[in-house]
């Protein structure tokens, strides 16, 4: 007597194979939803925005009329903001990462710092805005200025850069460090001459990607008072400023439909800047990444 009825199994297997096929298609279709959305978004923005996108749009300050309005102040403001954020976060972020990966003992204090960074990365960006509002804008009396915005964004980006730099440092194999120590190099010599150069491509890639996130951030800058419209380029750290996402937000919120087209044009400029930064990051990764 057979315990297994092969005929029954045969009969059922047709259905099982069909089920597999149906779900395969379903899974694939789900994957395409995200992609379809992405292409719809890009298509929509491009078709709406190209009409307003010309050299004047890039070089003009805000204006009360849609066809005169431009994103120049935002573009320059975003770049200036990054000029503040990049050096601060790279120095402090890489310093933190080196401390955690190379110097810190594996004790509770180190674990605490590590867990703290992980949690900071999950704090909503708008909460960083509240932090900046209290400390930089009011307590340190910087007001609604470029430097207050820059410092707030630096704190926001810092945990992301620390994590990226840590990953890059961790990817440097131990035996290379051993080789350095084995020749009588001190810890700092090893870090500076072997570990950092080897990790640099990874650190740069991670940093540029984090900064490109920061360039698209809006909420914290609204809180620390980035202006919606300014008519001159910031000439000092204590100037008023605006950034591209804030201008786009401002245009989006206006009732006349014409302004939506201006907003779309602004989005194209913003996305182009992001695309450029990402392209640079990918280029660095492919060009300089060390293979071990």
């Amino acid at each position, binding site marked *: 007597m057979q315990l297994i009825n092969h005929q029954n199994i045969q009969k059922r297997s047709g259905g099982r194979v069909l089920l597999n096929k149906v779900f395969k298609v379903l899974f694939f279709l789900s*994957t395409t*939803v*995200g992609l379809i959305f992405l292409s719809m978004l890009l298509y929509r923005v491009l078709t709406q925005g190209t009409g307003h996108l010309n050299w004047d749009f890039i070089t003009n300050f805000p204006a009360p009329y849609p066809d005169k309005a431009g994103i120049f102040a935002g573009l320059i403001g975003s770049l200036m903001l990054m000029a503040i954020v990049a050096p601060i976060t790279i120095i402090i972020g890489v310093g933190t990462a080196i401390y955690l990966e190379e110097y810190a003992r594996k004790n509770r204090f180190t674990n605490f710092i590590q867990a703290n960074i992980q949690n900071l990365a999950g704090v909503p960006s708008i909460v960083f805005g509240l932090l900046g509002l209290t400390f930089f804008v009011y307590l340190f009396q910087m007001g609604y200025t470029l430097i207050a915005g820059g410092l707030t964004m630096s704190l926001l980006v810092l945990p992301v850069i620390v994590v990226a730099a840590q990953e890059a440092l961790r990817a440097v194999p131990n035996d290379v460090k051993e080789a350095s120590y084995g020749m009588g190099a001190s810890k700092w010599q090893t870090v500076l001459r072997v570990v950092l150069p080897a990790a640099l491509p990874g650190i740069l890639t991670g940093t540029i990607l984090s900064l490109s996130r920061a360039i698209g951030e809006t909420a914290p800058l609204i809180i620390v008072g980035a202006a919606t419209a300014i008519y001159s380029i910031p000439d000092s750290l204590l100037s008023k400023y605006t950034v591209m996402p804030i201008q786009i937000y401002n245009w989006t919120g206006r009732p006349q439909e014409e302004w939506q087209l201006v907003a779309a044009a602004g989005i194209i400029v913003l996305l182009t800047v992001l695309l450029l930064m990402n392209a640079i990051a990918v280029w660095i990764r492919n060009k300089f990444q060390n293979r071990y």
Partner: protein
Amino acid sequence: MGKALGKEKQMDVQKLIQEKKQKRNVTKQFEKVIPFLLLLCAVISVLTTIGIVFTLLRESFTFFSEVNILNFLTGTDWSPWTGHFGVLPLITGTLLITVIAVIVAVPLGLMSAIYLSEYASDRVRKIIKPTLEVLAGIPTVVYGFFALTFMTPLFQNFMELSIFNALSAGVVVGIMIIPMIASLSEDAMSSVPNSLREGALAMGATRFEVTMKVVLPAAFSGIVASIVLAISRAIGETMIVTIAAGASPALTFDPTRSIQTLTAFIVQGATGDTTFGSTIYYSIYAVGMTLFVFTLLMNLLSQWISRRFREEY
């Protein structure tokens, strides 16, 4: 080979090293300061956290000296300009957006993850995964613009919908968090060892059966952790809801209506003509505190899940 190694050294490197040692001793003193400097860098992130908690606590404390904390937590009317500070409408607004986002993102994100991890060829995965990550890199203000100017008019073809509504904002927030769920869940599924799959496949199971009965259970903690993390992102999302969901706090679960979330109120409170030191000024910190607590709990929960139920292979 032997010639170069001849006994006569043209230059004694060890002697040179000895000569330079004096100079090295100076730098050595300097190197002792370095761990301290690096520690200072690391401490800044701790100070940031302390700063956040301190800010939220202190300003909320001031707020609660003017508004009864019980009224804040249980009140059903949020109209700060008329002196009503009941936070529940903002919380339900946030919840509504989050629920809609989860309904959109969890099935789509999970199924994308399954497709990428279990079905897609390497070549397809190498194209689709980075493209999905582009979705994660798009600024939220762009999503907000899209929700307001495209999603809402689109939905209005099928139903009664106010211009600002929870539905299109929620859907777009959901799409924003798809890459997060897809990517993290895919990582969890890919780390399920192939030997487990092969064991089941060798007995005649289909891919689908292997996925449902072997891969998903094995990757379960990673998947749940990714979902919880994505929920935390949805709760903290600001621009999409500020632009598309409106600014009318309402204790409702009707997705077609205009609502206001915790985050959207903070934006409104900080941009309006709120004066420094007014009750409304302090109220944005109390709302910020509420938001911070929610997201922190979610983040901790996610970390706990992935630590507690981590599968070791």
